[in-house]
């Protein structure tokens, strides 16, 4: 091996590194390494002059490899590899030593921090010493996209992608697209009708020549990687042919099965055969297999008998469909925090205590009460309503630690809607703070308080229970220091927004990370807010964090733009850090073949052979091979052994 000429560039990161790591000493120690021909420290290596100095130093000193000791490789590995390339050397001979996140920021003791920074830097210098110049692998791109989740986030993302001329498959779990927005009545801060703005988009999506809509379907499996994913989808049978269904509603009239209607959040009932909403897309009925008496003319068969359009077919079966796409947007939305976790709020068992979405359905003209606010217990108009904010939010000890962000706004909206429906009624709002950042939002809340004469009480509710046909609410008003007791006709809880069950499921299937609260994790909180950590998988909407419709739409547009940019490339480059066999050492034992999770290795003439298109570079093979005959390029066993040595020197 000819001796390397490595340059080491030590960044101060202002004082972020320099305050707790003696950067001059790190540079000096590295200068003592055999392979190091040049060292430099600088206050901001990633600044324009910093980057220029790297390029210049490579050229001036004929360096063949560089180590930048700075922040996490997630931030600037690409920056400095690009610089290496600009300076005329191979980008894979550049490596990052993370002495900020993994060192200076977590150790206040400068002496110890410096020692550790030296070990980290030295181990990376040793690794680079054996790095090979590599070329990225070019792969073709499948110019199609998939959107998972058909709420407003998914609809917007799919439309934006389709309008750019790229084919999109939208997979929605429910029998209709629309998501939560289809359940809302009016929306803050303008009070425009939710369905009126959403339905045209749903119809546009349905008719779009570039969109393939798959409702009542679930993603089951993902294979491949950015540019070339293969997705397996289960299409559940609806037992109704949407092309034949005339929406006459004859079937529901005869179906004998009555079950709670989940689309109306159990405020009403539906039949085993049903249509979620009048605005459903696809506009067709669905037969819910789990509640139907048996899909069997002998047992029941009433719906099939009555359907003149002959749209009902009991012989439909689940179907597995495979779609190839180059990029994926995940937009699987949110659920409300489960009231069962909150016995102090009645645990979901106290009559006339509703959640926010149920209140939306009461206000909605298409809802169970035809848009009249009537309380569930006796269908009377409630003359006083208590709205409680932050239920389950901002409570790290017992419930969710975070702020659900939109409840202040929708509670103000609910109070206004209530006063519009019941002008002589009284609305109370329990709140901790009012958070109304957003265009026109603060003004909206002020209007609720002033024009709509709503009584805002600052404080938490400690308990509520049924009392004399009403709901007794016990709380405190922390401004006056008084205990408050209200006998309310109805109570509405602004429950925390949590990741939907479908979000949890899809994260497991796609292997994308979630944050500490279970929302989908973005690749970087500031700079890469719509990307997951996995290349080619993007995030949009409330599945990523609580957010309102304007923010959801903006994020969906951003995710779509990322997809379009990705798919506008004819080829993508895949990192070449994949496995390589040394045939001279391989005995053909086949251990690696069994260890590889991607079935990328086969034996041929008694030697292991790696399929470069399939290998993901996980390294499972190299950890298994007893002969050290297989290694991942630039993360070889020899390199790791030398890194270990450097860490303990």
């Amino acid at each position, binding site marked *: 091996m000819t001796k390397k000429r490595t340059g080491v560039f030590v960044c101060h990161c202002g004082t972020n590194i320099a305050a707790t790591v003696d950067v001059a000493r790190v540079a000096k120690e590295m200068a003592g390494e055999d392979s190091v021909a040049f060292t430099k420290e600088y206050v901001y290596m990633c600044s324009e002059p910093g980057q220029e100095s790297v390029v210049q130093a490579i050229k001036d000193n004929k360096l063949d490899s560089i180590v930048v000791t700075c922040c996490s490789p997630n931030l600037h590995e690409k920056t400095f590899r690009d610089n290496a390339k600009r300076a005329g050397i191979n980008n894979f001979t550049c490596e990052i030593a993370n002495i900020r996140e993994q060192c200076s920021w977590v150790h206040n003791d400068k002496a110890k921090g410096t020692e550790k920074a030296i070990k980290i830097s030295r181990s990376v210098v040793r690794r680079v010493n054996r790095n090979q110049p590599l070329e990225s692998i070019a792969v073709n791109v499948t110019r199609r996209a998939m959107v998972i989740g058909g709420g407003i986030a998914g609809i917007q993302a799919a439309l934006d992608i389709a309008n750019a001329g790229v084919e999109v498959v939208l997979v929605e779990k429910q029998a209709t697209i629309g998501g939560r927005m289809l359940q809302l009545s009016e929306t803050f801060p303008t009070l425009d009708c939710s369905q009126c703005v959403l339905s045209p988009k749903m119809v546009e999506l349905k008719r779009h020549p570039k969109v393939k809509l798959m409702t009542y379907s679930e993603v089951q499996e993902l294979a491949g990687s950015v540019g070339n994913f293969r997705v397996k989808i289960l299409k559940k049978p609806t037992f109704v042919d949407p092309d034949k269904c005339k929406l006459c509603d004859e079937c529901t009239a005869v179906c004998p099965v009555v079950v709670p209607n989940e689309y109306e959040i159990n405020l009403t009932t539906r039949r085993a055969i049903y249509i979620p909403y009048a605005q459903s897309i696809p506009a067709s009925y669905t037969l819910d297999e789990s509640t139907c008496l048996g899909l069997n003319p002998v047992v029941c068969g009433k719906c099939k008998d009555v359907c003149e359009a002959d749209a009902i077919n009991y012989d439909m079966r689940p179907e597995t469909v495979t779609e190839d796409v180059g990029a994926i947007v995940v937009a699987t939305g949110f659920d409300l925090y489960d009231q069962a976790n909150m016995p102090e709020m009645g645990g979901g068992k106290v009559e006339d205590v509703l959640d926010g979405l149920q209140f939306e359905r009461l206000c909605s003209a298409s809802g169970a009460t035809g848009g009249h606010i009537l309380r569930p217990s006796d269908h009377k108009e409630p003359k006083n309503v208590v709205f409680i904010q932050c239920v389950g939010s901002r409570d790290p000890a017992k419930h969710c630690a975070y702020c659900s962000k939109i409840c202040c706004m929708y509670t103000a909206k609910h109070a206004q809607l209530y006063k519009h429906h019941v002008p002589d009624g009284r609305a109370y709002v329990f709140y901790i703070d009012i958070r109304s950042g957003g265009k026109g939002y603060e003004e909206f809340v002020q209007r609720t308080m002033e024009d709509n004469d709503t009584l805002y009480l600052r404080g938490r509710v400690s308990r509520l229970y049924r009392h004399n046909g009403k709901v007794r609410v016990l709380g405190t008003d922390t401004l006056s220091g008084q205990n408050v007791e209200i006998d309310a006709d109805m109570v509405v809880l602004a429950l925390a927004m949590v990741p939907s069950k479908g979000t949890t499921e899809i994260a497991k299937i796609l292997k994308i990370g979630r944050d500490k609260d279970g929302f989908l994790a973005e690749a970087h909180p500031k700079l890469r807010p719509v990307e997951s950590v996995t290349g080619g998988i993007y995030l949009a909407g409330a599945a990523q964090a609580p957010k309102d419709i304007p923010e959801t739409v903006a994020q969906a547009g951003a995710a779509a733009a990322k997809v379009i940019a990705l798919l506008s490339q004819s080829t993508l480059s895949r990192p070449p850090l994949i496995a390589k066999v040394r045939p001279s050492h391989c005995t053909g034992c086949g251990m690696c073949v069994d260890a590889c999770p991607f079935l990328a290795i086969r034996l041929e003439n008694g030697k292991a052979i790696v399929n470069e298109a399939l290998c993901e*570079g996980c390294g499972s093979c190299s950890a298994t091979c007893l002969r050290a005959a297989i290694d991942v390029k630039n993360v070889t066993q020899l390199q790791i052994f030398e890194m270990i040595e450097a860490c303990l020197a």
Partner: protein
Amino acid sequence: MSEQQNYEPRVVAFLCKWCSSAGSDLAGVSRIQYPANATPITIPCTGAVSPMYILSAFNKGADGVLVSGCHIGDCHYIEGNFLARRKMHLIMELLEFIGVEPNRFRMSWVSAAEGAKFAQVITDFVDDLKPLGPQEKLKKAERA
């Protein structure tokens, strides 16, 4: 006892790039302080950790070795951490067999979202290593 209190165990920490290494980044971003005893080596997957790495670390004078990866079921490479877990049980047995305290070796599951947990794992491991004193059994004699 006072000798043990001054003694600083030397730890090599193999961190999976997709989870624990990102978790250590998060600990950094959140400025959570933890002992500086563990030097990280980022690897593509815990499945890539050969038992030889662990023995080699002890051989070169490590007092403790940590392997930290994704939670079971969350492996970026489908089942890498599963393989790792199986291998690591073998390592524990092997260490015991050759007379090294098996708890000098530890495996943990830290996701990219668990910065505080990462810091805690290191803190606990260092605390637990201190009473064991320096690891001499596998350490090669200093080369002259």
